[in-house]
């Protein structure tokens, strides 16, 4: 008997590769043993190893088999669940001979085993569900034809803009008539809330710290370019964790929404920078929840808290930075929301829109109705279950939360009932562009009632080639080992990412989305105002979905 398995007599308690989500296909005949793949693998799922192989050969005219034992070098996938292949494919990327690639294994039992030490599986990315989402099942079926000729998307003038901020109802506008003309009545004590005209696709909250310096810088440069050169007023949210001090004091601050979340990270620095600010930020976002992990707090792991991050956030280096699941001041919605909106508004002299962001939930309408009665609430951002995150428990991502489509729609229709659909803009997020259809998903949400949409994961994929997908590919954002250098603070990894390239791709992505939005709006005859709530333009091939969303059924 061969002692091939070392001292062990059986293989119980050892996993077979069939349990793993990705199986490495390595081709002996193509591999030149350069070692690049094993060096680059972020999780060390593959390793160079040697095997003894029995080789039988025969020479001469007559069969004379000779058995020979050879020591060969191979690349082997390990069967340690802590070093599972994430399918990122960095090995394929660096292989000069196309000798290696991971293959998705739909039979895997990954989740059965990924709980070593009694710790649930944590990851980054978004909900692992590759199915077609509701947003992708909505089609634009009201095509202008002969009675209202379609517009020329290339030549007609389009105003693809939206408003961020509390809008006064027409009945309450402080106007007066002088010589048959309307003027703002300066004697009126009526508070006119700040409102920004922005591009309807916003970049959602991703923090300095969660993102690597070149990634955040690339996004910021892209946004500034879009505003300054392309004339597209795209705004970007900082995420929780402050902003680089130079940016806070620069004229570019007006393109950024500063987020405050339950950890208040970075806010000491922001408040101290206030007297030096030359521009107001685009808005302040108060984060109460996140679609990817509803009811869960944030966590920036110690290994990502390097000097720069520590200084921006105002904390010591190399400690876990946990944001609590809720704001510590939250006794009731009045306490938490109303007071915080007031405080934030006051900090900027009521010149900056302040709005909360919540995760998609069946109780969204309760929050909405509270905000509808609060004249200082500038908007409500709802992040659906398909939203992304840098780190969360898998169970939170996969099983918690509410899809954005119906959540947004019922909130909008609730506002319609109250006649406040134009007063409190709704921002929809979570799963926009999941299958690559950024403009179509954004337009669908707008027609369901969103004033704007927010994207994050899509942009990481489009602008920085993030490997992550809904088959749990890669999704290592939480570990600081992002093989693309997007969500890491390790210079060895993030030097792979060129911030100029990221900025260039951000610009390209937004310009392309803008063209596509026109291609959607033009045949529907809309160009002057964003078709918010134009639900007669939408159809779906699912009757129940059509009924729930109040759109037509077409098949």
């Amino acid at each position, binding site marked *: 008997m061969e002692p091939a398995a070392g001292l062990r007599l059986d293989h119980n308690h050892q996993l077979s590769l069939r349990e793993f989500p990705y199986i490495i296909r390595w081709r002996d005949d193509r591999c030149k043993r350069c070692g690049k793949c094993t060096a680059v693998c972020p999780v060390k799922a593959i390793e160079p190893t040697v095997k003894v192989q029995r080789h039988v050969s025969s020479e001469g005219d007559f069969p004379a088999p000779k058995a020979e034992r050879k020591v060969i070098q191979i690349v082997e996938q390990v069967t340690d669940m802590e070093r599972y292949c994430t399918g990122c494919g960095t090995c394929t990327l660096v292989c000069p001979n196309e000798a290696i690639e991971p293959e998705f294994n739909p039979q895997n039992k990954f989740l059965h085993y990924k709980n070593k030490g009694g710790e649930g599986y944590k990851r980054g990315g978004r909900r692992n569900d590759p199915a077609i989402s509701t947003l992708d099942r909505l089609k634009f079926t009201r095509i202008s034809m002969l009675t209202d000729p379609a*517009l020329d998307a290339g030549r007609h003038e389009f105003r693809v803009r939206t408003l961020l901020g509390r809008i006064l109802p027409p009945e309450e506008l402080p106007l007066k008539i002088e010589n048959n003309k309307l003027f703002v009545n300066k004697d009126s004590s009526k508070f006119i809330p700040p409102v920004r005209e922005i591009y309807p696709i916003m970049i959602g909250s991703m923090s300095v710290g969660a993102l690597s310096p070149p990634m955040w810088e690339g996004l910021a440069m892209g946004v500034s370019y879009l505003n300054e050169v392309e004339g597209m007023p795209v705004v970007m949210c900082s995420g929780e964790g402050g902003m680089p001090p130079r940016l806070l004091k620069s004229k570019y601050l007006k393109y950024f929404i500063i987020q405050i979340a339950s950890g208040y990270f970075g806010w000491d620095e922001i408040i101290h920078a206030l007297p030096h600010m030359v521009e107001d930020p685009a808005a302040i976002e108060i984060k109460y929840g996140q679609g990817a992990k509803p009811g869960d707090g944030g966590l920036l792991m110690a290994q990502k808290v390097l000097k720069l991050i520590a200084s921006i956030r105002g904390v010591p280096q190399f400690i876990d930075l946990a944001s609590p699941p809720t704001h510590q001041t939250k006794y009731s919605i009045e306490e938490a929301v109303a007071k915080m909106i007031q405080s934030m508004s006051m900090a900027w002299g009521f010149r900056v829109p302040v709005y909360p962001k919540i995760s998609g939930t069946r109780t969204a309408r309760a929050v909405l109705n509270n905000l509808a009665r609060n004249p200082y609430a500038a908007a409500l951002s709802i992040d659906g279950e398909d939203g992304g995150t840098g780190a969360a428990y898998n169970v939170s991502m996969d099983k918690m939360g509410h899809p954005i489509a119906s959540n947004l729609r019922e909130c909008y229709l609730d506002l319609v009932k109250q006649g406040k659909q134009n007063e409190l803009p709704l921002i929809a997020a979570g799963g926009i562009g999941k299958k690559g259809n950024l403009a179509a998903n954004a337009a669908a949400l707008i027609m369901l009632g969103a004033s704007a949409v927010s994207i994050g994961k899509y942009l990481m994929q489009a602008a920085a080639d993030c490997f992550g997908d809904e088959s749990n590919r890669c999704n290592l954002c939480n570990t600081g080992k992002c093989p693309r250098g997007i969500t890491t603070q390790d210079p060895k990894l993030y030097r792979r990412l060129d911030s100029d390239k990221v900025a260039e791709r951000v610009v390209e992505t937004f310009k392309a989305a803008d063209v596509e939005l026109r291609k959607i709006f033009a045949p*529907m005859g809309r160009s002057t105002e964003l078709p918010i709530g134009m639900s007669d333009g939408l159809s779906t091939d699912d009757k129940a979905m059509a009924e729930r969303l109040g759109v037509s059924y077409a098949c």
Partner: protein
Amino acid sequence: MCRLAAITSNKYFSPMENILALETMKEGHDGSGLGLTLKNLGGEFEDLKAYPVMSGICSRRGVEILDDYMDKLGFKLKHEWTPKIKPVKGIVQRDYYFAKAYDYPKSYRDKPMHEKEDLLMNTRIALRKIGEPDESIFVFSFYPDVITLKEVGDPLELGEFFGLDRDGLKAKIIFAQGRQNTNYQIYLYACHPFFIQGYCSMTNGENTAFVPIREFLTSRGFPGYMGYNSDSEVFTHILHYAVRQLNFPLIYYKDVVTPLKISEIENRKESGALRLIKQSLRPLCIDGPNMVIGFTPDGTCFMVQDSKKLRPGVVAGIKGKYALMSEECGIDKAIPKRDKSMDIFPMKYDMVIVSPGAEEVKVWNQLQG
């Protein structure tokens, strides 16, 4: 696309003038209906200007219900006009076409006009709701000095059918629409012109922003903002909302339905107010392509259109008589003797306003204010 013929004059004239103008535009309407709204009535209504006139169509049963309802409310019938019907092949005659002038219920006689207007509108809506399920009652307008006639068929034939060529029915402002039925069923309540509390408009083109506008209007909590069997009804209600409810001067109707870009607003003196209006009334931007012809309670008539309207309407005439129409051939028929070089084809920034009594025409440019 519907064909529109509006005439405003300082003298009484017959609605046949509008119908004959529509006849010249026949290639543009398919005979699916005619709508007529007459304001500043002459003929037998000339001395009844203070009394609200209800116009509509009833079945035999509907008349009884209507009379009974009006009686209960305390309205006293002062005068009644019914057309001298001449049966015309192809037009299905309904039981009873009418325009009835009433005196207000005693308790309302000394009330301010605003309250009277609300009573009239609520009465009209109540009757509409009673009669709509079985089509026993159609009420198109109920307001002093205004009559509305609507029926399915070819406009010229309908003129003959109603005997308008023989009748003494006259007015100083008459709006007429020859219907081109597009995507809505042929239904009398879908026929322009639409009227609410002294404000009237008719439109051609299709309103691509109909649903958000309808939702915004219906959510204003004003009972008159209902119906919407046609996407064009919202234009009348926007006019009413902007001018009557919000008390905006008429020119701001243009700023509401076709707002300027922010960069353009900066050039207007009242830019601060315009920015607020653009934001607060964002859902009322029509996004066309539409051309709207309307009148207000004081007898001012106007024409506006959005930038997508490829074929502008035209306003032309002589002092004392102006026509606002969708086609020039209609004006040639109605007012042939005029200086054609003075014809006005409003462009996207223009609002053409004809003062009461057709005294003068002004082109107000939105860009310059």
